[in-house]
């Protein structure tokens, strides 16, 4: 306990990593994201909160072009990472997704072994020269995903044979195996017990040193604990975006306050 400094939550001077301008997302005729403007800071954990169906996952998916895989989905506006338009025709979505990793709301391990689930990304992006390199990446990723101890004796068993919470941690380990710049996490802890949740929160805090993390969560306490900036979405609009401290102690918009304090809004 030598370090008496408060945790440094001041990220205002950090550079902008992701910038979204006038973003609209449609599913057919449904206008799911309405004119969202937001600047997400580098080396910062940004939490997206809001009631079910308000568009958090939709907006998150537009940051790594996962919405491209949904036929009826249409994204308009301007989204840039490091100043580069990610919807530019020269951008390869597969390359983009290696830089912008994602953990989905529902765990989705590949129907392969635990080892191959992790090794898949590093292999296609040529991150390991030797088998020993790959073993090291796999172990390190599984450790950071807080699941190593549970799977180290059955690395060649299928990933789909794990419990729901274990599958989710496997997916987190898979997402960080390629060392992405940006990590998008959609409710990563919804299927986890309190210990695994704490481990994932610890991981998120560590990741912030080198990456930019955006996390969708339904746990207000988790958003307050892990993030430095918070964005509150409601009916497809970004209602309030500010420092997490301000949002949780003194929100400006009454809709934000009703939501975070569990009131009938």
């Amino acid at each position: 306990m030598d370090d008496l400094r408060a945790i440094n939550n001041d990220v205002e001077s950090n550079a902008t990593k992701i910038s979204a301008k006038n973003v609209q997302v449609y599913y057919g005729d449904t206008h799911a994201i309405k004119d969202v403007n937001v600047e997400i800071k580098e080396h910062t954990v940004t939490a997206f909160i809001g009631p079910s169906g308000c568009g958090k996952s939709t907006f998150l998916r537009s940051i790594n072009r996962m919405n491209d895989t949904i036929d009826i989905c249409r994204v308009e506006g301007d989204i840039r990472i490091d100043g580069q338009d990610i919807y530019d025709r020269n951008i390869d979505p597969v390359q983009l997704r290696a830089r912008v990793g994602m953990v989905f709301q529902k765990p989705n391990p590949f129907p392969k072994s635990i080892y191959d689930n992790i090794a898949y990304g590093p292999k296609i992006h040529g991150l390991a020269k030797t088998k020993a390199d790959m073993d090291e990446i796999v172990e390190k990723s599984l450790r950071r995903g807080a699941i190593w101890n549970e799977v180290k004796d059955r690395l060649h068993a299928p990933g789909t044979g794990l419990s729901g919470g274990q599958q989710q941690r496997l997916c987190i380990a898979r997402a960080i195996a390629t060392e992405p710049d940006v990590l998008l996490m959609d409710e990563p802890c919804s299927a986890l017990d309190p210990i695994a949740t704490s481990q994932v929160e610890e991981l998120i805090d560590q990741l912030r040193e080198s990456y930019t993390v955006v996390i969708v969560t339904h746990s207000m306490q988790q958003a307050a604990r892990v993030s430095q900036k918070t964005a509150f979405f409601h009916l497809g609009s970004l209602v309030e975006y500010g420092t997490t401290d301000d949002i949780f102690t003194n929100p400006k918009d009454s809709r934000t306050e009703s939501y975070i304090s569990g009131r009938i809004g």
Partner: protein
Amino acid sequence: MSTQHIVSAFDRDLEGAQAMVLKMAGLVENAMSQAAQAFETNDLELAHKVRGNDKVIDRLDEDIKTNCARILATRSPNASDLRTVLAVMSISSNLERCGDYAKNIAKRTTVLAETRQIDGVPAALRHMQSAVASMLQDVLDAFIKRDVDLAENVRARDYEVDEMYNTLFRSLLTHMMEDTHNITACMHLHFISKNIERMGDHTTSIAEQVIYLVTGEMPDDDRQKSDLISQSKPDELSRT
């Protein structure tokens, strides 16, 4: 934020905590006015009663803290709910201190019964005491009504209490220098006046909590502190 919580027991928890702190405030107001009355009328029986009653105030403070800790642990309040719990805890501490000062005044009243009278001082103390009592009454009103203007007004009035204290302090010094036989009585009277002055400070801090509760921000301009004692030597003071 006055709309209800989806979990109605949460509303009852918050209302309960606020009701407890208001109950405590009533007891403290009583202790303050009874201590003043005991001093004024030399009523040693009443002074004794005030000293005994302080235990009840201390118990309530503990109960409030326990209750707030439970709300923090079980409901994880946010935004204005969080500020309500924090304000209640802090106001409870301020009130508990005011109760201690009232008890101390009652204790000194018992001792003062054996010493000589000092002209003019009881009237000055009465003046100070009623100024602080009305500040406390208003700040509780401000808390109930979430009235920032009234809380600001209470904060401003603490300046006058400080001034009264400074004036009284000078006059006590004069009395002590004129006749050393006055020293014992004057020392006790000084502590009584200091107690009342400190009650004013705690009332001011309650006013700041009310402002924080409503606006989410502590008032930032540092109130000008008119405390000559900490800045000058006694002989300088008696000359002014």
